[in-house]
């Protein structure tokens, strides 16, 4: 079985045995092996998503653990209205927010402070990712999540609304604001634009 399985769209009525939808169905039947398979398949992506909010390993581990405890308890409630990946990411997102709220943590407090001045463009390709990370760190957590879910994970507008528990128009607005802010912070993003 591949480590990472691409979930099938909800219109697929009979999911393949190794799809995340099929795994959820088995988890609903208290199949721990299926839970372990799903955990292993999802772990890396969840770490990547959560590490945008904190680089503290124990926080990331705790949120992932909480996420899969909820998946274990609620798998029977998954009805396939959305992709399994969207459903799981929504649980992870809520667990993360809850953790941040319970522990009164400021999201990404360990990231770039506002007063750092960004250069117009990276000096070279080696610095490109650092330059982009610094720009992303200036966004609000909601704006950054929207970009991460759209570009990092390939979720649609509607899926991001479901994951974050917000209206589609709220997601549109966050995406809009994120892009505008980045365009102003990183005027040479894409390498073709003129400075405004």
């Amino acid at each position, binding site marked *: 079985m591949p480590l990472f399985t691409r979930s099938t769209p909800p219109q697929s009525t009979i999911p393949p045995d190794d799809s995340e939808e099929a795994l959820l169905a088995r988890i609903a039947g208290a199949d721990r092996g299926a839970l*372990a398979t799903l955990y292993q398949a999802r772990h890396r992506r969840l770490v*990547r998503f959560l590490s945008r909010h904190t680089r503290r390993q124990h926080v*990331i581990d705790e949120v992932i653990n909480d996420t899969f405890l*909820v998946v274990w308890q609620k798998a029977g409630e998954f009805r396939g209205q959305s992709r399994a990946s969207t459903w799981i990411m929504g649980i992870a997102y809520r667990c993360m927010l809850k953790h941040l709220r*319970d522990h009164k943590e400021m999201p990404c407090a360990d990231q770039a402070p506002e007063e750092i001045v960004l250069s117009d463009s990276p000096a070279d390709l080696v610095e490109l990712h650092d330059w*982009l990370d610094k720009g992303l760190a200036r966004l609000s957590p909601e704006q950054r999540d929207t970009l991460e879910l759209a*570009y990092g994970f390939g*979720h649609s507008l509607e899926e991001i609304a479901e994951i974050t528990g917000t209206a589609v128009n709220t997601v549109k607005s966050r995406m809009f604001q994120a892009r505008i802010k980045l365009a102003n912070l990183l005027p040479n993003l*894409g390498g*073709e634009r003129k400075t405004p």
Partner: protein
Amino acid sequence: MNRLPPGAASHQQVWELLAWYVNGTATPEQRRIVDRHLPHCDACRAECAAQRQLADHLRRDRAPVAGSDPAAGLARLMADLDRPAGDTADAPAARRRHGIDRRWRLAVAGLAALVLFETGTLTTWHARRADYQTLSAPAPAAPRATIRLVPAPAMSAGELQDVLHRLGLQVVAGPTEAGVYSLAPAGGRHGKGSDSASQLAALRATPGILFAEPVGTDP
């Protein structure tokens, strides 16, 4: 909005669609709208290039978070599944804040201790301890444990040994599967620093000690 040049009514619509065009989730109709617009709009082509660069950046793997080990995490998850039903509420993080947190820390420390075992650090230490006991005091009666302790995963065996030596303590059992060491006064000493209360206070004040409790207290 200072980056949006004035233009046809469709320009802003296309500009907003670009994110979903770039990430491949736009509908076929939305793609057609964008495809028709791009050849005639420098600003949207530049924006499209910018969003593609951003998407490439966000899709790449970030540097892994140190120590985030899926095998250890999975072991902990499986252990959590076995808790009584009342223990697995919908809000595990909140639940843990009110008392389970210590158990979580025990489990993590235990797993870290097992990893240390595998890498040989603690194995060497325990081998030395075993040798010492065998050579100097064959089959001694194990002193009664007075303290239970869990070191942080980052604490080396040497550091732990130094702390225990300074406080006149020795390991008499452990680590358990949960990473708990049982400690007792070294060599039956009862002199300075060997009373449990001051040893506990000193241990709790030591960076790298996650947990120290007198024996008899439920962790």
